[in-house]
């Protein structure tokens, strides 16, 4: 369970987040939808303690992320699938994660199977991976410690249609088994396909939130989204 409570973040004079409040309940997938630059990544960085909020607080399981002890075993996080050392193999990336978390080596093989990377691919340096492969690796890394909460920033970027379907089924399965999933996206259709709740954000403010089916009140999610973000910058998404 994730809770943002009146989180504001002023960075270099810019209000990147403005009184952001929402919760992510277990057993569902919440889509965090907004145009590029709306503050999605900033909010997620605040949540996992990489960035300090100017005011307000974000908690996981009712605790600040930094107070979770060995957080990787409780919260799976993927912030940027591109943030990898190009000279390190995919298997080694998972191995480092598993060692940090205190998991057996066998977990690495299980995760590779789960995300569909072959043994040969896993031995190659990630510098040669496509964005889709990096996303699969990053999602696998987030799942290493069998966390009850997942935080994924734009995990569908670079995935092909089969990949998106795979991600949808994976997240559905995790949510059904009680996981709280928060994923960000700037693409409406992705969120419609994958999420059952949606939090719309623009210029650092929460514009609307509710269930994917109920939010529009008859209108499509796209109409609602474009209406709400029409006055925000870079709303072409």
């Amino acid at each position, binding site marked *: 369970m994730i809770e943002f409570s009146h989180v504001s973040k002023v960075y270099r004079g810019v209000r990147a987040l403005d009184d952001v409040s929402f919760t992510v309940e277990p057993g569902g997938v919440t889509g965090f939808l907004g145009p590029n630059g709306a503050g999605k990544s900033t909010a997620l960085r605040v949540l996992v303690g990489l960035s300090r909020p100017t005011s307000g607080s974000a908690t996981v399981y009712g605790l600040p992320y930094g107070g979770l002890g060995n957080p990787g075993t409780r919260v799976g996080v993927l912030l940027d699938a591109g*943030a990898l050392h190009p000279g390190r193999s995919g298997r080694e990336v998972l191995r480092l994660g598993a060692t940090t978390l205190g998991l057996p080596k066998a977990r690495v093989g299980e995760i590779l199977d789960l995300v569909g990377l072959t043994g040969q691919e896993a031995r190659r340096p990630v510098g040669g991976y496509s964005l889709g492969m990096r996303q699969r690796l990053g999602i696998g890394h987030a799942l290493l410690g069998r966390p009850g909460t997942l935080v994924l920033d734009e995990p569908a970027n670079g995935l092909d249609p089969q990949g998106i379907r795979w991600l949808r089924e994976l997240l559905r399965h995790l949510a059904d088994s009680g996981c709280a999933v928060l994923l960000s996206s700037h693409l409406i259709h992705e969120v419609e396909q994958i999420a059952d709740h949606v939090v719309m954000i623009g210029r650092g403010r929460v514009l609307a939130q509710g269930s994917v089916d109920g939010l529009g009140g008859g209108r499509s999610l796209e109409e609602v989204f474009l209406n709400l973000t029409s006055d925000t910058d870079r709303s072409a998404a």
Partner: protein
Amino acid sequence: MTSIPFHRLLLVETRKIFDTRSGKVLTAVLVALTVASVVGRGLVAGPRLFTLTGTAGIGFGILLPVLAVLSVTGEWSHRTALTTFTLEPRRTRVLAAKFLPPLAVAVVATVFALLVAVPATAVVAAVRHVPADWTVPPLALPGMAATFVLLTAMGSAFGLLSLNAPVAIVVCLTNTMLWSVVSRLGETGRVLAEWFDLGNATGPLATGTMTGGDAVRLATSVLLWIALPAALGALRVSRAEIR
């Protein structure tokens, strides 16, 4: 709530030094250069154990600090800090775990140089039919290891302060060069270098002739070139926005 034990962080940070392509290449270069320089010197200078062991140090003085710089700055140049500090939000623990392994590498490298120098000395003596010189001043080898540990620590400290590999490497290398110029600028320059040049201050360590005054001068250099930049860097990282 169980936290991550420090030895696991230490293990992970040690693996990170060697598990990338660049890390493997740098390690291979370090090994090859050690063997080549020790054997080469043996052929020219004759079978003298202490001289041959010390020859490996010429490369160590440059390569070990570079290794340390890359170990620290890699997290920023490739933005893996995002993952590292998400798995262990207590950043100073990670930094401590990052600081130690390169120092151990410096000790291992010194022992390795000795291990290469022993057979090299024996073989050169046998081939040339001259008596081998096995004498090594008693404190010289630990002193040599300590010297490389300190130079390596300087690399880590500058890496931590700048979080930028090229900048840290250039500062490390020019620091040495700058002081060799300063030490030649008359009496004032010589005294300045004695007190503030880490390379100069570690000299008595390597020869095993440390006096009380030397120790104070060494402590001054260590404070200035290792403790201060490392502390400032750690403070900066622990407060920074990781992006």
